[in-house]
């Protein structure tokens, strides 16, 4: 199970980063959303995985770590706020400038060269 979660985090990160580096605003926003999934799952996994041990107090139970869950819960809501601001900024920028490129430069590529 741990392997599945770890590879999922890696997959989400890779996909997110790749989209983040695209030249148009919408893929960048999607990349950001995927990256926040990855980060949230990662933070959550820092509490170690457990099946059927929700942190709700009941008679004689074992529980998983509640703290990462609390942190991730607000992170999920906040990332919605962030996504909203970014996507609206993208929309506004598009109607203002008539272009949804994220770069200032003409052509949208060819800067910086190879790393």
């Amino acid at each position, binding site marked *: 199970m741990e392997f599945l979660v770890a590879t999922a985090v890696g997959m989400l990160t890779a996909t997110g980063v790749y989209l983040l580096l695209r030249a148009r605003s919408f893929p960048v926003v999607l990349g950001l959303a995927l990256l926040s999934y990855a980060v949230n799952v990662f933070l959550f996994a820092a509490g170690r995985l457990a099946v059927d041990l929700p942190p*709700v107090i009941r008679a004689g139970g074992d529980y998983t770590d509640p703290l990462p869950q609390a942190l991730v819960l607000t992170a999920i809501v906040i990332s919605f706020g962030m996504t909203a601001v970014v996507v609206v900024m993208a929309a506004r920028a598009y109607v203002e400038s008539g272009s949804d490129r994220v770069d200032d430069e003409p052509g949208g590529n060819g800067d910086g060269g190879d790393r």
Partner: protein
Amino acid sequence: MSLALIVMLPFVGAVLPALLGRAGSTASALAAFSVSLVAFVLLLSHAPAVFDGDVVQAGWVWLPGLGLNANLFLDGLGFLFAVLILGIGLLIIAYTRFYLPKRDSGSRFHAYLLLFQGAMLGIVLSDNVLLLLIFWELTSLSSFLLIGYSKHLPEARQGARMALAVTTAGGLSMIAGMLILGDIAGSFDLTVILQQRDQIHASPHYLPALLLILGGCFTKSAQFPFHFWLPHAMAAPTPVSAYLHSATMVKAGVFLLARLWPVLSGTDAWFYVVATTGLATMLIGAVVALFEDELKALLAFSTISHLGLVVMLFGFGTPLAAVAGVFHILNHATFKAALFMTAGIIDHEVGSRDIRQLGGLATLMPVTATLATLAAASMAGVPLLNGFLSKEMMLDAAARTQWAGQGWAVPLVATVAAMFSVAYSFRYLVHVFFVRRHERYAKRLKDPSAGLWLPPLVLVAIAVLIGLFPAALAGPLVATAAAAVVGGPLPEYELALWHGATPALAMSVFALAAGLFLLSRHARLREAWQAVPHPQAKPMFDAAIAGSVAFCRQVTADVHNGSLRRYLAFLVGSAVFIGDVGFFSGSHAAGVRETLPATPVAIVAWLLLVGCCTVVLVLQRQRVLALVSVGVIGLIVAFAFLYLSAPDLALTQIGVEVVTVVLMLLALNVLPKTTPAESGRVRGLRDATLAVLAGLGSGGAAWAVMTRDVETLSGYYLERALPEGGGANVVNVILVDFRGFDTFGEIIVLGIAALTVFALLDGAQRLFVRTARLEEALSPRARDRRPLMLAVVARIMLPLALVVAAYIFLRGHHAPGGGFVAGLIVAIALIMQYIAGGAAWAEQRLGPDHHVVIGAGVLVAAATGVGAWVVGHPFLTSAFGHVAVPLLGVVEFSSAMAFDAGVFLTVVGAVMLILATFGRIDRRDPQPAPAPTPPTPRLPDARRQEG
């Protein structure tokens, strides 16, 4: 207590003249005068204690973790400076009232002046070096305001900027020096530091600390080679020059030398750096002053020279020289402030400060001429005046000093400097007041009103009286101040006119005679002076500034080149790099934590996730398809949360997923539906490499974390959730109770995000409509009616959804749920009404404004927190109790529930505001259309955009 009041009064009082601007110049001057007078009286009330050798202390612990305490103390040295600051301050305020032009009420001037006064008092009374540094910077800032007071003049602005640049650069250096000093001494309190002489001298960090602190002192006190800002600061109104640039601010550096004298002086480094700098400054200032034609420039260079003199005396490191230094501080403040005031009178009456255009003023302005004569003679060091006394003590100290084993060097340079000092002092006198002019002045000249000559008269009277009766008048003050500098018993000395036929007397007499001879040959000397090229400070300074600006601009342009992709690539690359360095620089054993078996369900979910990621990557140009895939990924994540014992997260994730997808679809309504292929192969490969590296890194880190055991905080929360938070759902208890303050901050952030969205979209509707029309022309859309089924279902669902939300909210403290989830459910139910019924329809029926809901939510949460204060607990302490309610049985009520209600309201308000505002821009017409064919805020379809 009253010490703090002395420092605070000018700061607080600065408001008074600022407010009294309308009431005229007398009122604002009077306000400033009264404030200073009260502070002065308070200061004098401490005089008996200070003269008894006591140290008056007051203080509060402010930031003990940083060693920053608001400690003040008043000893002899602080008292001398505070008397100068407040005493001369009073005279300056009176003088300014008559100096400023009629149209200027002086309210701004006096407010700045009081700010400066408070900052200066703070420096001289601080017992904590960090506090002192704060006041030190405040003097730089307030003097910037004062120098640039005539803001319409370019030279005033440039002079103010130059002074600010030089003195704050020195201030930075001093901060570093003081931090090192405090580190050596183990405390930032001056009274402690001053006891640690041996420890500080022995420290390997003594030299850097010394040099850095001297950097601050020398820039502030205009020592060569940092002296150049002072002549340019003469663009300030003359009262400012008289106050800041003769008596107070430029003495701050000297003050600090005196303050730290007991612990820093006495080493070779101190002697050679400080004494040599002082000596050089004294000579250079005196020579340049003789050839300046502008009255204030002459006085500025003379001030530089005299500051050099005092610095040199402290640099000698002997107690006797320190006494002379303290005495000269007092004397210089009296005659130099008086001289600046007479220069101001001449400027005010004649309208010129150019010596070449002046002359013969003695007969026209006899009072001014008398005052200037006495003050200038004191500056020259003529006997019977106070300047003579301290200058002779200086020459005496110089005569006893060996420089690199040479006994002649220091006395010779000091005598030459004294000679030039005599020459420029008499030049000020003779060329302005006594040499007959050939042409007549344009207007009839006479002495100004008493308001302008009374303040310098007071200073000149003091100068003369100290000159006549030094031991009686200045003796006690100098003795207490010098004792505070030396920090021990004072040597035998005598403040007297006649010490017998000493070498110093011979040097003094020679300097007088030679100085007068120099002046008589002034015209020829001047030609010779002008024949040699001089380095000009201003062009060099301007070039240095322009160079650094160009450099910064270039670096900025190179780094911040407008390419977001490049920034992000650097960001990701750096993160990967730093993570790798961190990982590979340590050794790691394999994780030993037992892993959970992978169930078939989990494997299916994983495969689905991988599939969706692949779809996103391959088909990312089809934006709607990519969005749908991302939505599925979000649901898989929610499922993972549910499966892995995080029901709260799963609920929240589902809710957020829904609103995010709606939001993105709304965005796609505006943005193009496809992404053109334009990235090159190299670029794509680079991005793919980065992405794979980042993925390997985060996945590997996740694996490493999950396969290792660690002691966590979870036990703490699990044990205390029920007894202390009154809730069984530990996640919810953490959110609303243990870490409620975090949550409070987070809902505020969410509210701000929503308002930002509103601000970005509000008013931009016309733009959106234009774009939409353009797009529509390119690719006409289907204008479907709103589906009836959807409208009906949505309306039926609304009450049901509200009940579910209420249930989720109420049980949140004990079972999965709570304010966040309930807020999302309500927001989704409401947004369904928008989608099904149209924005206009929904807005008619939805009561309150979303802004109000956000505000109400934050306020409710805050009120819950504040409620804890009322009953005497810290912010957001929760309380709970059980109440029996008919029908429902025993129900628990807790204050955390009210807090959760605040969270709920904020989430509803924020989500609604974001989605409704965004949805509204889709209307083709700003006005709501009539009912039969309403505008359609429908979900956009996946049609491809052409072109």
